[in-house]
């Protein structure tokens, strides 16, 4: 393909090809601090192709595909090219990764112990991880937590943090402008702006930790804490995993062990500061 880049994020290497220069240039800028992966054999190929022949030039429209594709994925505009590349990498992981149990969760680490947060899109798990990542925790990732099926450890996948809507202003107030990607308005999930993880998150992206607390956050409600039983946690995590079924017995054993070992709580919170106070408090009590 005309423009390409190889990126190494956590345990996975991606070869990204694009018909346009813009998404690749943006990736190169935002991933500049990541290790140089050019000339490596990639685990996955991601392709950003014109949705139709003329759509390379006229009202450019990106079709995201690669080794593993979704035939009915909706095309995206070139203005959202960076998002398309990120979605392409996530898609390859979700459909093709087998070396860990993938949990659709954010995670942060302190003292070698890991806090895992999972929930639907909009639950606040990304924002919470991003905020904690600026305040004494190491950000491990906002999209996938990788559960090692042999050791039970959680490994990081610290790609760019995808901030949505009101979370954008919250993080703009916390970090320097060069760590932010371009503002993308009018995506399928509203406004999106990416955040480059801190240098420690990138430097230690090969380093796992033992899971110590599982949270199911919910943004926009009065402060509340509810214990979550092992059965419920198990069911919710199977739904939050893209490769649980594919991993068969190994995945079942790993997840059983996870919910047996790790205390779980559902938390509601009205705003970011309240959430952080609540998380720190639960961490003191439980982890």
């Amino acid at each position: 393909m005309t423009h390409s880049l190889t990126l190494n994020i956590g345990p996975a290497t991606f070869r990204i090809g694009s018909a346009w220069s813009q998404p690749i240039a943006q990736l190169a800028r935002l991933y500049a601090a990541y290790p140089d992966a050019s000339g490596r054999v990639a685990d996955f190929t991601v392709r950003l192709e014109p949705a139709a022949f003329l759509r390379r030039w006229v009202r450019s429209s990106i079709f995201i595909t690669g080794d593993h594709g979704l035939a009915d994925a909706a095309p995206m505009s070139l203005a959202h090219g960076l998002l398309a590349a990120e979605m392409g990498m996530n898609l390859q992981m979700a459909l093709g990764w087998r070396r860990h149990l993938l949990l659709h969760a954010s995670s942060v680490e302190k003292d070698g112990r890991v806090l895992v947060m999972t929930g639907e899109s909009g639950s606040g798990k990304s924002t919470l991880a991003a905020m904690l990542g600026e305040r004494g925790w190491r950000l491990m990732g906002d999209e996938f937590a990788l559960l090692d099926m042999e050791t039970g450890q959680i490994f990081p996948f610290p790609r760019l943090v995808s901030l949505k809507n009101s979370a954008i202003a919250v993080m703009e107030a916390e970090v320097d402008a060069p760590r932010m990607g371009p503002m993308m308005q009018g995506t399928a999930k509203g406004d999106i702006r990416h955040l480059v993880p801190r240098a420690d998150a990138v430097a230690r992206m090969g380093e796992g930790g033992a899971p110590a607390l599982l949270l199911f956050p919910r943004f926009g409600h009065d402060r509340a804490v509810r214990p979550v039983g092992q059965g419920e946690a198990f069911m919710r995590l199977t739904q939050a995993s893209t490769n649980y079924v594919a991993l068969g017995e190994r995945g079942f054993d790993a997840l059983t062990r996870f919910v047996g070992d790790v205390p779980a709580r559902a938390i509601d919170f009205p705003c970011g500061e309240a959430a952080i106070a609540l998380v720190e408090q639960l961490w003191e009590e439980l982890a």
Partner: protein
Amino acid sequence: MSARLLVCALRDPTSVEGLDAAQWNSLIAAARGERLIGTLAVRMADRALPDAVQPIVTDALDEAAREAKQALWEADRARAALKDLDVPVVLLKGTAYAAADLRAGQGRFIGDLDILVPRESLDAVEAALFAAGWEWVKPDPYDDAYYRQWMHELPPMIHKTRDRMIDVHHTILPLTARQTPDAAALITDAVPLPDGLLILSPEHMVCHAAAHMLADGDLAGGLRNLWDIHSLCCEFGAAQEDFYISLFEEAAYHGLLVPVWRALRLAYHLYGTPVKAYSSPITVDYRLKQCDRLFIVRLLARDGWGRETHKLLRFAFFVRSHWLRMPPAMLARHLFTKWRKGHRPA
């Protein structure tokens, strides 16, 4: 051309020694594009591979093992659904190779479950599958009527809870095709497996693979179909002297001499299948014919990013597949209906 790299690696796994990272990327992308990554992984399983390649191969082996298990379970569910009907149920393609533990099944991607049943049992089979939780995929009445009137299979069904497709065939080529294989003979000669399901006889298995690839399809996934034919021929040819003579006999009987012969020529040239030439009782040699070269270009139409190339040629093969399936007036009517509904060839 990365599909060529893939063919070389499948044919001779030692050819991967000394590939650089860019070539490995091309090879892996082409193998994934052609759904041959599992097959390639099996071929390379006991080789020393670069550190970055080894986990990709291990993943592909795991995935293939899981697919085979899932496919055999699905076949077993179909067996259970149809067991009271007392109808012969013949497994076809990937599931059959896996069920019979044939080399063609090793690492093979297995998608839908394909079965062959006698045409007169279709209604009963359809009702039994329905009762056991399968349902229609295509709600379009034109498609449904078209399948029932002209195709070699029922419209595809999918299982409600397991989300797996089943194709119920009553013969191996559309009824509109110029060749008319004898489906009853395919079922009569089928070989029973321990659980009561059947698979085609060796000769018929190759005939079906060739018919499916060259007399019906547009050669999408052609390298994989051709690898099936190569693997089947290697295994059956080694087990049975003059396998090729009986293969040509059966091919002639079913009107499939042209696709079978072409499939063997292509398999011999691309994969090095150990075919046997004859001058008596029939003359068969494996030199490429002029138009075989077009087939080879079509089969190898994939680049180092896993993208399909040669768009025009692919379209020509798409048109050819329809031309083979239907007489011209019917083809015109069919294409017009599809065009009005906004269908585009992939």
